[in-house]
C-alpha cells in the first residue's frame, strides 16, 4: 500500500513537472453511479466524449447503484495512480475514509452532479447544478409568460422527499412569490415517471373541472410532463395552448413535444458536468490554480423559439 501511494505521488509529480501543458498523458478515473436514468446515460456519454476531445485517458467504472462498488473503484483508481478522480456519488454519506485515502495519495477528487456530506478539504471541487435555481428559472418563465393574468397552476412533484423534488418546488415557489395572479391549486407526486405523471394529471384534470380551471402545468422533470401531455390530449384539451407546460431536465423527448407545440419550456439540467470539471483540472495541473469548492453549471431555458427539432437531433444520440 505504501509502495502504491509512493508510486501514485511519483506519477503525479511526474505529471506536474513534465507534462504540465498537455493533457495527453492525463489519466482520470470516473466512478459513475450506474444507469438509473436516461440523463445519467447521457452524462456518461458526454464525459467520455469530453475526455476524448481533450486527449484524456478515461478509466470508467460503473457502480451499479452501489456505494461499495464506488469505494472499490476509487481504491483501485488510487492504486493505479490516476491523475484525478471524477466521482458521481450514489449517496451523500460514508465517503470520508476513501476520500482521505485519495487525499493522502495527492489525487484530486472532483464530485459530479451530487455532493457528499464530508469535510470540503477532502475533495477539490464539486460540479453540480443548482436545483433551487432551476425551479426559479421555470417559475420566472411562467410569471413572464402569463404577464399578470390570473393563472391556476398544477404541479407534478418528483419523488416525495428527494432533494430535486424539495428544491425544485422551493425555487418555483420563490419565483411565484409576489405574483398574486399565480396560484398553485394542486400539487402531487408523480415519482419522476411518465406513467405516474399521466395518472396524476388525469386526476388533476377531473378534479379541476375537466381541466378548464387549469392554466399551466409545472412538472419537476420532463418525463412526467410527457406523460401529462398525453393525459391532457386524451381529455380533449390542447397542451401548450389550453394548458401551458413547463418542466425541467431538457431530455430529447420534450423537444419533440415542443416542436409539436405541446410543451412550452424546459430548463436544462446539463449532462455535461465533466466539461467544467476537466477545465478546472487542466487549470490546476497547469499552475496549481485551485477552483472554487462549487462550480455551478448553467440552468439554460429552452422554449419553442429555440428550434427544438434541431436540439432534439443533437441530443438524441447521447443515450438519454
Amino acid at each position, binding site marked *: 500500500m505504501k509502495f502504491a501511494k509512493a508510486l501514485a505521488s511519483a506519477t503525479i509529480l511526474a505529471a506536474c513537472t513534465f507534462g504540465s501543458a498537455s493533457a495527453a498523458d492525463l489519466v482520470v478515473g470516473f466512478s459513475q453511479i450506474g*444507469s438509473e436514468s436516461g440523463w445519467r446515460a447521457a452524462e456518461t456519454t458526454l464525459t467520455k466524449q469530453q475526455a476524448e476531445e481533450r486527449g484524456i485517458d478515461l478509466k470508467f467504472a460503473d457502480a451499479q447503484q452501489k456505494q461499495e462498488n464506488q469505494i472499490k473503484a476509487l481504491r483501485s483508481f488510487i492504486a493505479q495512480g490516476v491523475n484525478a478522480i471524477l466521482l458521481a456519488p450514489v449517496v451523500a454519506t460514508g465517503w470520508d475514509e476513501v476520500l482521505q485515502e485519495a487525499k493522502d495519495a495527492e489525487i484530486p477528487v472532483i464530485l459530479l452532479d451530487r455532493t457528499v456530506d464530508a469535510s470540503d478539504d477532502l475533495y477539490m471541487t464539486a460540479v453540480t447544478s443548482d436545483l433551487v435555481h432551476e425551479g426559479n428559472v421555470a417559475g420566472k418563465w411562467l410569471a413572464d409568460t402569463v404577464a399578470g393574468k390570473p393563472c391556476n397552476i398544477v404541479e407534478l412533484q418528483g419523488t416525495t422527499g428527494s432533494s430535486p423534488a424539495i428544491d425544485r418546488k422551493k425555487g418555483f415557489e420563490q419565483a411565484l412569490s409576489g405574483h398574486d395572479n399565480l396560484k398553485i391549486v394542486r400539487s402531487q407526486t408523480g415519482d419522476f415517471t*411518465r*406513467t405516474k405523471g399521466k395518472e396524476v394529471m*388525469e386526476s388533476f384534470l377531473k378534479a379541476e373541472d375537466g381541466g378548464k380551471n387549469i392554466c399551466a402545468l409545472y412538472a419537476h422533470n420532463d418525463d412526467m410532463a410527457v406523460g401529462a401531455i398525453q393525459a391532457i390530449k386524451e381529455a380533449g384539451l390542447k397542451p401548450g395552448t389550453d394548458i401551458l407546460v413547463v418542466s425541467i431536465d431538457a431530455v430529447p423527448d420534450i423537444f419533440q413535444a415542443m416542436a409539436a407545440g405541446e410543451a412550452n419550456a424546459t430548463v436544462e439540467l446539463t449532462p455535461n458536468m465533466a466539461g467544467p470539471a476537466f477545465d478546472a483540472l487542466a487549470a490546476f495541473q497547469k499552475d496549481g490554480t485551485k477552483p472554487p469548492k462549487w462550480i455551478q453549471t448553467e440552468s439554460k431555458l429552452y422554449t419553442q423559439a429555440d428550434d427544438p427539432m434541431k436540439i432534439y437531433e443533437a441530443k438524441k444520440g447521447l443515450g438519454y
Partner: protein
Amino acid sequence: MTAILRGYALRLLPQLIALAVILLMVSLVFPGFFRLEIQNGRLYGSLIDILNRGAPVVLLAIGMTVVIATKGIDLSVGAVAASSITSGHSLAMTLVITLGTGLLCGLWNGVLVAILDIQPIIATLVLMVAGRGIAQLVTEGAILTFNDPGLIFLGSGSFAWLPLPVIIWLVFGILVALIVRKTALGMLIEAIGVNRQASTLSGVLTPVLLIAAYMLSGLCAAIAGIIAAADIKGADANNAGLWLELDAILAVVIGGTSLLGGRFSIAASVLGAIIIQSINTGILLSGFPPEFNLIIKAAIIVFILVLQSPPVRNAFTFVALLRAGRKPTEGQAR
C-alpha cells in the same frame, strides 16, 4: 343457478363492501367522482380511470392468484413486465416476442420451483433482480419512445366506449376463470397448494401444473408490460412495473386468498386490485399533500385486512346468528 350466484355473492361480499365504502368516502371528498360522460367516443370519468389505471395490477393479480393457490409466490412479475417490453419490430412481431418473453420467464421460474424444488420466494427473487437488469441492458437505461399506432391503440384506444386495457383484462380474467373453474384444473391447483406430496401421490401431474401456473403468471406480466408501455408510448425499463409485484400480492390477499395456498378466487383478486386502485385514485383526487399518500393507503388496507381476519369475521357471524335467533354454538362450529 341461483345457488351458485348466491355462493359467489357471499364469497365476494367483504371485498364488495370494502370497495363500496372506499368509493363512497372518495365521493365525499370529491363530489364529481361518479360523473361519467362520453368524450372522444369513449366514457370519461374517474370511475373509468380506476378501471383503466388498475389494468396492470389486475392482470398481475390474475396470474399471482393461481401461483399463490399452489402455495407459491411470484416476486418477479414487475421485472418481467419491464423486461418484456421490446420495440423496433412490426406490431405482431413485438407482441409475439413480448408474450414469448413472459412465458419464457414463467418457464424459468416454474422449472426452478417444480423441478429443482427451490422455494418460490427465492426462485422468483432471481428474476425480480435480473429481469429488470436485462431490460435495462436492452434499452441501455433509456426510455424507448415509439409511434406505432397499433401499439398505442392497445394502451389508449377504446372499444365499446371502454378503454382497451379494461377490455383486455376483463376478457383475459373471464377466460382464465372459466378455464380453471369449468375444468378440474382449479381443483387440482388447490390440491397442490394444500398438499403437494399428497397430490403427486394421487396422480396429479404436479410439476407440469406448477410450471403452467408460473407461465400463466409470466404471460400476465407480459400483457401488463405491453399495456404499461403502450400507455406512455415508451418502454421505461427503469420504472415500468416497479413494486407492482407487491401490489399484486396485496390484491390477492385483499381478495381473501390465503398465502398458504389452497382455495382461491380470481374474481376476488380482481376486486382486490380495483380496491387498491380506487384508493390510489381517491388519494390523487382528494388533494392531500403527497406526503400523506402512503399513510392513507396503509391505514385503509390495514382496516380491510382487520375486517377480513378470522376473529373479527367470527365475531360478525356470531352477532348475525344471535340476531337470527339461533344458538351461538352453531355459529362457532362453522
